[in-house]
């Protein structure tokens, strides 16, 4: 190559390189700005992360948007966010009103499958092993020795997607009302197999018929049970209402089965 050719080539590279750097800076600035304005909206009711999600600021860089968690969920609770979520676009979330995480899976596969560990599995594994150890000491000689359900329950109790919050002004129980029929209408496609059913076939929310004197669907269907939500006479006036306790995992089954037009119970994500 001649000397002038080389110089020309170098000049061409420097000019287009400068444009490239400019483009990168523009993209970077745009991303920085979007990150700032979407930080608040990203973490709201509609944007619950799957179980085991690490802090949102870390989640956003670690998630490679592969969608493995989406595919492995047996009730298809996990979806990928659309472009309106800004930089969270393509990352997984759970819309609990449409389909809650009902904990009917075998081993919390969504967390286990995550290749970059933004859904962090080790904590659940440790909790499960501890539960087995404890169970072993007590039941080793039992005829029906089966530590599996205990292990799974210990793992699932550790989930903290958010905390349920009751809207006392619309909740049927707070108004002393009962509930009869199916909570979400005939066309609702949501699946609810909890709590711990052995039935391998998915149970649709619309197939269940209730007849309650005081509406207690959220308590009845909670997969975690009495450590998460109970019916209680909290004011002492003989009125029994649901009360969310510390054990709530934010799975959202209560939101999914809530019969009021707008759900009277919502899951607020953990802000960390």
């Amino acid at each position, binding site marked *: 190559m001649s000397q002038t050719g080389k110089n020309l*080539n170098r000049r*061409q*590279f420097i000019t*287009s*390189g400068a444009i*490239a*750097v400019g483009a*990168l800076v523009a*993209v*970077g600035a745009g*991303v*920085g700005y979007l*990150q700032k304005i979407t930080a608040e909206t990203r973490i709201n009711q509609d944007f619950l992360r799957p179980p085991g999600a*690490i802090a949102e*600021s*870390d989640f*956003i*860089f*670690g*998630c*490679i*948007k*592969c*969608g*493995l968690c*989406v*595919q*492995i969920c047996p009730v298809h609770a996990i*979806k*990928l966010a*659309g*472009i309106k979520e800004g*930089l969270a*676009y*393509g990352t997984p979330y759970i819309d609990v009103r449409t389909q809650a995480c009902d904990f009917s899976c075998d081993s919390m596969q969504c967390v286990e*499958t*995550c*290749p*970059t*560990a933004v859904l*962090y*599995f*080790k904590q659940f594994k440790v909790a499960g092993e501890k539960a087995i150890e404890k169970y072993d000491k007590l039941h080793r000689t039992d005829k029906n020795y089966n530590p599996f359900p205990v292990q799974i329950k210990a793992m699932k109790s550790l989930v903290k997607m958010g905390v349920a919050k009751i809207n006392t002004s619309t909740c049927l129980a707070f108004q002393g009302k009962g509930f009869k029929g199916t909570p979400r209408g005939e066309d609702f496609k949501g699946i609810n197999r909890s709590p711990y059913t052995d039935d391998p076939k998915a149970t649709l929310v619309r197939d269940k018929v209730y007849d309650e004197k005081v509406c207690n669907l959220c308590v009845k269907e909670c997969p975690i049970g009495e450590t998460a939500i109970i019916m209680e006479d909290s004011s002492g006036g003989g009125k029994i209402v649901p009360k969310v306790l510390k054990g709530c995992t934010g799975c959202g089954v209560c939101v999914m089965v809530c019969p009021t037009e707008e759900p009277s119970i919502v899951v607020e994500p953990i802000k960390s």
Partner: protein
Amino acid sequence: MFGNKNKTPLPSKSKDEMPYAKAGLNLKEWRNSHVNKHKWRTRRWSVLIGINLLFVVSVTFDLSLLEGSLSGSRLLGFYLMDPYNTFQVALLSFITGHWKYLTMNFVIGFSTIFLFYFFAGGRTFCSWVCPYHFLAEWGEKLHDYLIKKKKIKEHSYNISLRFVFWVGFLLLAVLTGNLVFEDINPIGILSRAMIYGPGLILLWILALIIFEIVYSKRFWCRYVCPVGTTWSMVGKATPLAIKFELDKCAHCLDCQQVCLVPHELWFVKKGAATKEVHNAGSDCTRCGLCVDVCPGNALSYTIKGWEKIL
């Protein structure tokens, strides 16, 4: 690659030494006698469509064949990870301390794909797997047609630009704490659109392909895509290559016409080759278009060192 260019070329062949003379034809007759059956293109497009279809089939029928998307997947339960994503996540992990959480699957996924493409030819990914490549290949045809009709002008840049982008996107990821590139990566976007359903982001792909058709040929693949650049680096010492044999070549340049990265076929010009046998460099996508088109079968797939072993 550059070392070869600076060597003194071999003397040009005389007319009698040309392959068409040996066959008793003139150049035009010899070129016309070759029927392009598009053997390798058919195979390649089948593989490309097949792999992307396997993703879709797996998600539609809930099978564990090939789950996930092209940025990260599981083939029969075995993890595979996109290398550029891996670099970004690894780099950011060391900064934020997330590396403590990273699993063995992350390492396995990256090493498997790295080793596979190390042996299968680096940029082989581009023409045999990448869904954007499929669109861009058609875009390139349209672009060439418009150039031929003199409707548009060609705008080409220095191909080293992609290294600026490769480092740039890595730096951007660190500075913003976000996988910026994955937001605009057409491979991931198209893969997700096929597997999880389309979204508005496809407008970006449309804009990109239109830009490539009317302004600059294969702009994204040639000058920007850090994934392709990564594969190009992975494939530097790969055994799978396109072999060129000087004695079978008549310098008709049909291969450079169809080549997706013509600078890798620099040795086919008359008086350019410095050796009797050349292998195309690491930017070659092993697409096989040149193998299909060559009238003298001077270009063929080869596994370097294979003959020695045999």
